[in-house]
């Protein structure tokens, strides 16, 4: 090796003090950024839990709806949120039933089949869809349902609008999971004389199942908290309605926004924070469920 090679002078064995300082500074910065990011999260949790958690333990919260509630200021009972919880669950489940199959099939098309112009167009449309504000999606469903077809709004309209928001989220997450499946596994399957569609359903999907389920549950959690489509399409009611195909239907977000108009009232405020707490709890449970499914699917490996 020639002596002209440019090479920094390093004394063997001695630590560069400049590097040590830079390392310390970077470590401190990274930790500080992490803590700053944690503050709002902790603060939100703290506020919601301190204001709302005790409401969840009142005997009526999970069993009763708001029937019999008196005008704000005259009512002394918090009553329950069963109507809103049932509504949120029903609408979100129906949303998932509409959105998840479409999203998974779109992702399979994009990853396994999509080539050239059509695939790029589909991918572009998924991007557009994920950028649509939820209120616009709701307006669009309103325009079709009411203006074009002259039908009466029913809670399932909100599910359809929510599905438009859920599809791009789940498509993208499923796409990522499918891309993680090594091509070698597909080739191994083809080389055994297994047709492509069977390779997808029996090798590719099972391999990425836990990731797909986690993504779908996160999409579910996301739409469970959406408010705008509900305000436009599924009017709040204080009564329990279990039929998604008729009438009005309460949901946790619309319960929050309804009670918010009387936030000065102590009982309304209790209901509001109780509903917020319930919503967070619901999202938490769904997240944990997603993790559990991921864990269970991994045990087989």
């Amino acid at each position: 090796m020639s002596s002209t090679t440019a090479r920094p002078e390093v004394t063997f064995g001695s630590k560069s003090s400049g590097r040590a300082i830079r390392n310390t500074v970077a470590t401190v910065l990274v930790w500080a950024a992490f803590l700053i990011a944690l503050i709002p999260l902790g603060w939100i949790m703290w506020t919601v839990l301190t204001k709302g958690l005790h409401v969840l333990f009142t005997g009526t919260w999970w069993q009763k709806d708001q029937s019999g509630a008196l005008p704000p200021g005259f009512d002394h009972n918090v009553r329950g949120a069963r109507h809103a919880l049932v509504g949120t669950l029903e609408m979100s489940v129906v949303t998932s039933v509409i959105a998840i199959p479409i999203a998974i099939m779109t992702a399979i098309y994009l990853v396994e089949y999509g080539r050239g112009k059509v695939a790029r167009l589909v991918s572009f449309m998924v991007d557009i869809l994920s950028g649509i504000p939820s209120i616009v999606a709701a307006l669009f469903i309103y325009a079709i349902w009411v203006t074009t077809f002259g039908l009466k709004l029913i809670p399932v309209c909100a599910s359809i609008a929510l599905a438009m928001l859920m599809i791009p989220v789940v498509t993208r997450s499923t796409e990522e999971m499918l891309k993680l499946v090594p091509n070698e596994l597909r080739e191994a399957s083809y080389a055994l004389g297994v047709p492509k569609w069977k390779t997808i359903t029996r090798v590719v999907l099972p391999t990425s199942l836990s990731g797909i389920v986690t993504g779908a549950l996160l999409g579910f959690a996301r739409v469970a908290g959406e408010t705008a489509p509900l305000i436009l399409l599924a009017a709040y009611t204080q009564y329990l309605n279990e039929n998604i195909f008729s009438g009005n239907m309460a949901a946790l977000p619309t319960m929050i926004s309804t009670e918010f108009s009387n936030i000065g009232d102590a009982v309304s405020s209790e209901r509001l924070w109780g509903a917020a707490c319930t919503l967070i709890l619901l999202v938490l449970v769904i997240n944990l469920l997603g993790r559990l499914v991921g864990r269970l699917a991994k045990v087989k490996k």
Partner: protein
Amino acid sequence: MAKRIDVQDLDIFYGDFKAVEGVNLSVEPRSVTAFIGPSGCGKSTVLRTLNRMHEVIPGGRVQGKVLLDDEDLYAASMDPVVVRRTVGMVFQRPNPFPTMSIADNVAAGLRLNGVKDKKTLNEVVEKSLKGANLWNEVKDRLDKPGAGLSGGQQQRLCIARAIAVQPQVLLMDEPCSALDPISTLAIEDLIHELKDSFTVVIVTHNMQQAARVSDQTAFFNLKATGQPGHLIEIDDTKTIFNNPTEKATEDYISGRFG
């Protein structure tokens, strides 16, 4: 159940790039043929045309003929899925299905093609694992994940999986290059045994391995980078290693290049 392979004037493309040009070769049933040559000369590419795996890659296409006992694999009426059931393949890196147990991995080819009968499947699993010299090592943990085996065991599991569908021909693309010497030896022994029932074509970077396992050796080379690869010569392994016709073959084998 072993078939003869004839390749006639085969050109292989990736999109517009011609990767391999003008290959002519024949492989006798129940023999081992080794493909040797420097990296990038198209050994894997040629191998993958023998069971129509080449076209799985977007833009992959061929011109010319590949005959399996006089049937053209690239005839319009030929179903690639059926071709792949007849011509099995083992890859460079062991690739067992991660969601399946050892037994399910071996049975995968049959199960995914609709065989449900438990008894048949169990018999095939045992027979194939025995055929791949793996039975004694795994018979007590057939329901454990295939990914939990060592690299060499995984590769033999993949061989068991490939022979479980009873192919006529077995293609192996550098099956030992990711393995330690002991596992390599185990696979080489296995290839000797497989020859009794299958036609075997193996790509290898290891000249000693080609000399040890094959009856016939094909040497591939590139004229220059960016040019298509060629089959330089194919002959009995003894002849190729002791008395090759082409100067390039001799240079490669004696380690003067490549």
